[in-house]
């Protein structure tokens, strides 16, 4: 195998790897048609050339207008559009979400906003988190530490006094409801 043949083989390998330039591809097609007219590469090159010449006859603007009329979400690939480049950039199914850098930025921003909302708003105590899990109110917008009783003995006295304040009307109400029940039983002993 001489050097020239090796070069052509290397160029062919690069062609299939999608690494060749337009000039190199043109040279390859010429080489195939001259040296191996019946090879698969020559047939493939002939096919692509025919396809290219036929597609150049298409009025793309007319086709685009027609497709847009049928489906408003249709957009003809523009120059520079990755979808317009053909081989090497296969068309992606349209109903999939891609994690393109700009979307990743948007997702990151959304995540940052959520984290900011969670961590930068007034912090709640550990026990309040437990409360939240159980479904009752959590973080306060009020700084309750200003009114906080920190002496446990004083706090217990306050709780006892509060409970006493609860106890008196509570007992009165339960006694009254028991009396009412008894009266109802007296009036209607058989529950009719």
């Amino acid at each position: 195998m001489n050097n020239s043949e090796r070069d052509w083989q290397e160029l062919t390998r690069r062609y299939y790897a999608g690494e060749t330039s337009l000039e190199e591809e043109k040279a390859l097609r010429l080489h195939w048609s001259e040296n191996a007219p019946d090879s698969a590469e020559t047939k493939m090159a002939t096919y692509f050339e025919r396809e290219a010449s036929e597609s150049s006859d298409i009025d793309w603007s007319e086709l685009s207008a027609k497709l847009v009329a049928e489906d408003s979400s249709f957009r003809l690939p523009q120059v520079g559009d990755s979808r317009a480049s053909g081989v090497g950039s296969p068309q992606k199914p349209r109903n999939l979400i891609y994690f393109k850098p700009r979307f990743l930025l948007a997702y990151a921003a959304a995540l940052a906003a959520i984290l900011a909302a969670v961590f930068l708003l007034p912090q709640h105590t550990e026990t309040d988190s437990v409360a939240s899990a159980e479904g009752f109110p959590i973080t306060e917008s009020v700084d309750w530490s200003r009114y906080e009783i920190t002496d446990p003995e004083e706090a217990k006295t306050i709780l006892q006094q509060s409970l006493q304040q609860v106890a008196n009307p509570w007992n009165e109400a339960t006694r009254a409801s028991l009396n009412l029940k008894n009266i109802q039983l007296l009036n209607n002993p058989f529950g009719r």
Partner: protein
Amino acid sequence: MITNIRRLGCFLVLLFICSGLQAQTSANAIERYFQQYLDDERFSVVYVSPRVFQFFDRLELGDGVDTDEVSDELINDLAEDLRGLRILSTDDNPRQFYEEAKARIDTDLYELLMTVRQGKQNNVEFLIHENAAGKITELLLLAGGDESFTLISFVGNINLETINRLSKEIDKD
């Protein structure tokens, strides 16, 4: 299609943030309806945090109110489940504040447990707040008469049976 999914995604993210914010802003009854009075000099405000309740079982019987051992044990049991005690009271225009408080409390959030009239003028209302699971998470006492207006909010896992037993024990004392 992708645009729609993107829009839906954005909407869900916003919804999540909003719901988070709403959860953060919800609070006990005093904070919900009477926040403006917290800095009002006419009102006394007291707060006992859950941290302090944890020390209760290490204390001797309370000095403030005469309680026996049973009451003390019940109080400690109750304190274990409490996540906060808040008191708001005033002697200034108590009847006006009582009526205002009654009108302010959202009856969709707070269920009236009982109303008691003590004497001619003193009214007491007990209200409860339940979570989605049906557990009582707040007991609110609203008392108003000629002499004073008091709001007491017990937040935590409220067991009415414990409150009932405790009330009876305190009554005995």
